[in-house]
């Protein structure tokens, strides 16, 4: 439960070796590069390496064509599989790309051609559906020279008005009807065509051009079209097979080329972490970063094997404007809970890692609030499944939570809501007359609630102690002693709790003037005068220790802050009532499930199963969130402050940029 120790390193070498160095750093995964603006070297003659990446355009083209071809190139193994020594020239990769694109383009063109043909024929076929009642030969019809014909459709209302034009020189022939429209054709002499066209236009006639691919009679035309469609579809299928074969043919060289290009591209992208110095006699680079302390010697040895390259260590990290990043280091039990710490914010490099404490208290509180042997095992099993199949960190957390839930389920004697399923075990094996804690018994309700508050008080005290220890370690004696989460704050809190508990349990009143003055008022005054007292213990004189805004303003603000401190002590303590509340509500919800199951006699098993699943999902989610709230608000606020930045290896840096 700590922060991994890091060493600041400076890598310097010949410019020609930069790519090899970066390639090694990518594989190593224990090197965190720093941007040059944050290190000292920017103040000298070194300049950032800001060249345009020559690989990015070709890489984008590879990605585009690969996606189009249906296989986006896999990126996972590019770094492991490849080394710079196996790279080809960029021209070679361009040739592979050009050859593939050319062959694919030809087949794609054929594919589009057949698709268009199918679409055209299907459109004509759709149109022909309306013409199917016409028993005419279209070739002969359209070869007529003395009269015009117009195919199209007319609204039903407009067709009724044709009766008004009985004496006009046209022949009207409807051949298909829809609800609102009639498909029809009209014939007229060539010379009269403008007049008749105008007449029909005034009635809203929609002229439809008969597609040129329609020949002979409608039946034959339909058959021809269907044959054309079938032929085009088979050609399309053949083209598709050819494209598939092409993909197989090119897959290996394509993916190989992509992998190499990706590596070259990534390496070039990481040039931004280097700065260069170029002279007529020298072309050097410098790169700065952090390496895990335990790995430093191996890293140095491997780097110095790369041609003209040297590595300078700065184990003390002194004289640097860089603050080291934070990499958490925890055991197998608390490791998954780093997720929550990262959610809140990483600790500073020199700060306290709360992961282990959070892991234990989170599991404890969750187990208390979700205590059920059967449900706990199910949660663990589900968590295991999530971890195995989807590699979800939450799955690992659920495994631990489920175990604690099961343990507390044993205390409550609850198995999938059956409150007396473990009674034989208690009686015959453990020799108890009944289960240890009967949550649903009315006489135990207050005990549960008070116990929850008591647990909360203990956790708050522990949190304050942790704060005191960590502030002392940081040599921040002002906060260690005089803050509301310091020694005097703890003294006040314990004094109040102790006197209160004693007063309620035994009736003894400890609130004598001495007790109040020494253990309540004095600590509060110390907290109120935190700033001047802190300055005094740092060695300042009394005069210099006075607040810069004057005692008047300081005291005015301080009193209000003190009131807030008192309220927060009270509210934080009472907040843990929810732990007891959820113990009771969990049992209560299961009893409701059983009441419902009794109503459905024939389906009671189903109701119990569904009820359990529902309660697990609902209560599990709510309890998880509530415990996290307790952790972040009631506990973290007392002993933990974030402010660290994460340790990101070069490889992870690239993954982040790739999105």
């Amino acid at each position: 439960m700590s922060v991994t120790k890091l060493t600041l390193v400076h890598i310097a070498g010949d410019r020609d070796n930069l790519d090899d160095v970066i390639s090694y750093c990518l594989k190593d995964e224990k090197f965190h590069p720093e941007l040059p603006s944050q290190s000292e070297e920017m103040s000298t003659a070194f300049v950032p390496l800001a060249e345009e990446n020559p690989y990015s355009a070709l890489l984008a083209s590879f990605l585009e064509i690969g996606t189009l071809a249906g296989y986006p190139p896999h990126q996972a193994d590019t770094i492991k599989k490849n080394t710079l020594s196996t790279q080809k020239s960029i021209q070679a990769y361009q040739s592979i790309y050009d050859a593939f694109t050319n062959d694919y383009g030809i087949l794609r063109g054929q594919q589009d051609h057949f698709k268009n043909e199918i679409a055209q024929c299907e459109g004509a076929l759709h149109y022909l559906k309306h013409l199917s009642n016409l028993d005419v030969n279209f070739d002969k019809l359209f070869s007529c020279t003395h009269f015009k014909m117009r195919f199209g459709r007319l609204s039903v209302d407009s067709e009724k008005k044709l009766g008004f034009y009985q004496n006009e020189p046209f022949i009207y022939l409807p051949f298909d009807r829809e609800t609102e429209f009639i498909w029809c054709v009209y014939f007229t002499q060539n010379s009269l065509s403008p007049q008749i066209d105008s007449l029909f236009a005034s009635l809203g006639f929609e002229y439809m051009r008969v597609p040129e691919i329609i020949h002979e009679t409608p039946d034959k035309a339909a058959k021809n079209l269907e044959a054309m469609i079938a032929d085009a579809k088979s050609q399309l299928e053949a083209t598709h097979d050819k494209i598939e074969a092409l993909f197989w043919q090119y897959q290996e060289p394509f993916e190989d080329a992509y992998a190499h290009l990706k590596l070259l591209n990534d390496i070039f992208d990481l040039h931004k972490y280097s700065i260069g110095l170029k002279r007529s006699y020298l072309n050097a680079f410098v790169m700065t970063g952090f390496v895990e302390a335990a790995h430093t010697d191996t890293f140095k040895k491997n780097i110095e094997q790369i041609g003209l390259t040297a590595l300078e260590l700065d184990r003390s990290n002194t004289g640097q404007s860089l603050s080291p990043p934070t990499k958490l280091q925890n055991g197998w039990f608390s490791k998954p809970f780093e997720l929550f710490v990262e959610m809140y914010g990483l600790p500073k490099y020199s700060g306290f890692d709360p992961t282990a404490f959070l892991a234990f208290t989170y599991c404890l509180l969750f187990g208390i609030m979700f205590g059920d042997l059967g449900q706990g095992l199910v949660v663990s099993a589900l968590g295991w499944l999530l971890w195995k199949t989807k590699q979800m960190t939450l799955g690992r957390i659920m495994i631990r939570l489920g175990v604690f839930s099961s343990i507390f389920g044993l205390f409550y004697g609850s198995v999938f809501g059956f409150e007396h399923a473990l009674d034989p075990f208690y009686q015959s094996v453990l020799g108890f007359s009944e289960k240890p804690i009967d949550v649903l018994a009315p006489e135990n309700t207050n005990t549960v609630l008070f116990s929850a508050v008591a647990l909360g008080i203990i956790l708050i005290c522990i949190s304050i102690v942790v704060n005191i220890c960590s502030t002392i370690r940081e040599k921040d004696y002002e906060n260690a002693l005089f803050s509301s989460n310091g020694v005097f704050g703890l003294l006040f809190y314990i004094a109040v709790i102790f006197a209160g508990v004693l007063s309620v349990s035994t009736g003894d009143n400890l609130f004598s003037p001495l007790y109040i003055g020494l253990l309540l008022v004095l600590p509060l005054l110390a907290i109120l005068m935190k700033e001047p007292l802190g300055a005094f213990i740092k060695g300042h004189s009394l005069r210099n220790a006075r607040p810069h805004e004057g005692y008047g303003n300081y005291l005015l603000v301080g009193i209000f802050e003190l009131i807030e401190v008192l309220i927060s002590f009270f509210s934080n303590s009472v907040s843990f009532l929810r732990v007891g509340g959820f113990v009771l509500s969990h049992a209560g919800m299961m009893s409701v499930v059983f009441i419902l199951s009794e109503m459905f006699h024939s389906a009671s098993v189903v109701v119990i199963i569904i009820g359990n699943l529902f309660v697990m999902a609902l209560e599990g989610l709510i309890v998880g969130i509530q415990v996290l709230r307790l952790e972040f608000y009631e506990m973290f606020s007392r002993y933990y402050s974030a402010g660290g930045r994460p340790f990101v290896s070069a490889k992870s840096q690239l993954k982040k940029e790739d999105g």
Partner: protein
Amino acid sequence: MKLPTLQENAVSTKIRAMFGQMLTPAQYNDLLHCHSIPQICAYLKEKTSYRDALAGAQESTIHRGQLENLLRKDTFYQYIKLIRYVPLGNGIYRYILFQAEISIILSCIRNIISGSRQEFIAEIPAFIQPYIHLHLSDFARAETLEQLAHTLNKTRYEQIIRRCIHVQSQQDSLGQYENFETAFRIFYFETILELIRNSTHGVAKKQLERLVQIRSAMINISRIYRLKQFYQMPPDEIKKMILPFYDRLTPKIMTDLIQSSDADSFLTRLRKTYIGAYMQENSDDASQQIEQMLHRMQLRLIRFSSNPKVLFMAFMSLRQMETDNIIRIIEGIRYGLAPEQIMGLLYQ
């Protein structure tokens, strides 16, 4: 006071549901930014309550006239849906059909006078034939006013047309049509007002009468302005063409307006009436301002009235205005007007 029947209450409910489906300002804005009739058709089909009406229309080939016809048809079928709940002979609910009949007769008269038969036949709303007693095919065949009068034999319109035929022989073509139009409008408004008086009472009666009177005032104002501006007609002649239905524009005020020396003087006098409050500073289009006022009044009635007849008249009028709005948008886009210019022509 006669309470609404259960059927009439059903009409009220239906009206409110239909009102909720009318075009919103956002939809009008989208329509104004369309660039072509196919685009308008596609938008109406996909994004508005006109999707059923335009289901069979092909956006790419639809004709302007066809689109307008489909929209009018939809408005008419909305009316049919409403009156399904009340007997067709039930007074005021029949006014749409009555209005349609007069519109067809006047259209036929215009056709006969101007000789634009093809246009007339294209405009005939064939879809209303099942709901009216007149035979539309007979109108299409009428080539003279006498033939038209014969077509209207034994209908309530016959006397009106014969009276006008007798008068028209002494006038020019403009006077001919205006006389027919005035006569039929007077008949229309008289009939409607009588229906209102017979079937409604109290507040509802006043509201409906006001609607009719405002519409009459709108026609009068528009006519006076047009006759003075474009025809410089003398006041005596103008007076014969005024509809004798008055709201807050009393006969005295109307006479005063008619006596204006020219169109500008007319507008100046008009601004001093209650209509002046609704007229914009730089606007000369008084009738458009009255239309806007009427539109707002009808919206208010829809929102606050509970009388089925009032709701019915207000809704049908709004629906017709919405159709007119869409048609104005279509025309505006055809003539390349900017959205802001078209917006100024709409009822809003």
